[in-house]
């Protein structure tokens, strides 16, 4: 305290070249990411303009842009939401098992296997889904139709190939499982010992400790991980394109019939090779819609995480 009063006022802090270079390159990297994002957005918007301004009968399907993109947006959201609903609880359970229950050796091996799932190319998941998973799901879908057919989700007739919206959702769930569980595992392992011991010392069982100390602490991390997973599910192209190829239908809640809505990314992949002129602009416009959806989802996730920031444990 004494040194500050005796120091001359407004002394310029000494500027070191190392600091300047590092600060400059860090700032540059930060600006670069904004420039890239803006570049992508500008490209999408400028290339979409012809489709956005075209009259309804010029767009393929003759119903105008909204009726072309609408079912695609619906299909994209539906498949991603199914994937998220299936994958998140499973991923959290895997992460909890690896962090708190598995013996150390098994935990390391399991973590490795889960990470390996992330390294499998999506086209392989597509083949797996179409040749292995889909046929095996057909009996299960029949059962769903018989017993729960009164729900719009499980209305018949059941697809005989099993190439349905629900199959897509399940394949996507497997694909996003690694990222969600890896991030959940990371946040769970960072729960301070202080908090877990506080719970145990109150007489909590292992599960109660997880419930009162671990899950609340890791919640925002799990949400963040799910959103990354959701991002991947929304944009997944090849697996969806393979499984749902050719079966584009309008908006329908039926998850196990052979008429399914296509997703944006898969539709672009399937249609692009045969498109020219305005059709390409239409596809890019649908890409713009996907871009906006992803941004909205991320903003929503951020809002959810920040809503109870006071209680996050970060302070």
């Amino acid at each position, binding site marked *: 305290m004494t040194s500050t009063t005796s120091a001359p006022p407004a002394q310029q802090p000494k500027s070191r070249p190392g600091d300047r270079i590092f600060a400059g390159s860090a700032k540059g990297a930060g600006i670069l990411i904004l420039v890239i994002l803006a570049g992508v957005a500008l490209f999408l918007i400028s290339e979409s303009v012809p489709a956005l301004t075209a009259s309804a009968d010029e767009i393929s399907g003759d119903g105008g842009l909204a009726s072309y993109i609408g079912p695609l947006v619906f299909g994209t959201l539906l498949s991603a939401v199914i994937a998220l609903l299936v994958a998140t609880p499973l991923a959290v359970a895997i992460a909890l098992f690896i962090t708190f229950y598995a013996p150390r050796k098994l935990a390391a091996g399991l973590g490795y296997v889960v990470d390996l799932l992330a390294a499998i190319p999506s086209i392989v998941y597509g083949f797996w889904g179409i040749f292995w998973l889909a046929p095996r799901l057909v009996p299960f879908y029949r059962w769903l139709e018989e017993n729960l057919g009164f729900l719009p989700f499980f209305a018949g007739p059941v697809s005989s190939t099993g190439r349905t919206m629900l199959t897509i959702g399940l394949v996507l769930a497997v694909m996003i499982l690694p990222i969600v569980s890896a991030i959940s595992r990371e946040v769970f392992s960072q729960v301070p010992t202080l908090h877990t011991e506080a719970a145990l010392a109150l*007489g909590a069982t292992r599960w109660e400790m997880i419930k*009162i100390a671990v899950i609340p602490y890791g919640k925002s991390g799990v949400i963040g991980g799910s959103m990354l997973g959701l991002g991947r599910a929304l944009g997944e192209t090849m697996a969806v394109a393979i499984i749902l190829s050719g079966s584009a239908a309008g908006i329908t809640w039926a998850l196990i019939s052979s008429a399914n809505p296509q997703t944006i990314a898969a539709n672009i992949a399937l249609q692009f090779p045969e498109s020219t002129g305005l059709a390409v602009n239409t596809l890019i416009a649908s890409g713009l819609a996907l871009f906006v959806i992803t941004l909205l989802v991320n903003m929503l996730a951020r809002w959810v995480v920040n809503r109870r920031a006071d209680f*996050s444990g*970060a302070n």
Partner: protein
Amino acid sequence: MAKRIDVSDLDIYYGNFKAVEGVNLSIEPRSITALIGPSGCGKSTFLRSLNRMHEVIPGARVEGKVVIEGQDLYGSDVDPVDVRRQIGMVFQRPNPFPTMSIYDNVAAGLRLNAKKTSKSDMDGLVERSLKGANLWNEVKDRLNRPGSGLSGGQQQRLCIARAIAVQPEVLLMDEPCSALDPISTLAVEDLMMELKEQFTIVIVTHNMQQAARVSETTGFFNLNGVGQPGRLIEYNPTEKIFSNPDEKATEDYISGRFG
């Protein structure tokens, strides 16, 4: 509620490493017992063995007996979870649950006991516990704010309120004031003097003045060298320990000649 603790021939191991050896002592109910000694002498390990918290570390085990009013803590049919519900603990660093409000922190232990408690009963218990921890007046207007927003001393008293809310028989305190400023320390010490009317308190402390101020009985732990197990060197009334200890090592330690 307060109960007597009898420890006989207690050895504590972490895997193959013997951390504490041959502890024999009796802790009187409604009193404060202080454990002092240099770092690494096993006093915290011993304290944690009294509510089986040391078992959190894989490979930890004990040989010997810890008996609380006739009940063997390490009996084969005793669940450590039940032990910890009877024997509360306050840690070195204040550790309120950061994701919970002040109210929920105090209620956390009560809710674990899974008994259905009505809202008004719970309000009463929370208020009584916070008053018991001399914190009520400071937090009564912000019970729904996070506990992590309090000062360090307030957080530690919140942790004490959380521990006493479940009406434990014994309260273990592992250096509860080492992260606090002198004024907060005084507040916690005053609180301990009040709490000993109801609870058996065992406190580990590095602050010998604190041991001298608050405790009736003091145990001095020491170890012969690195890698050797810690031992209870002397266990006597606090007055005797600090004026005329039986052991030379105790005298050396409290007069600052080592440790």
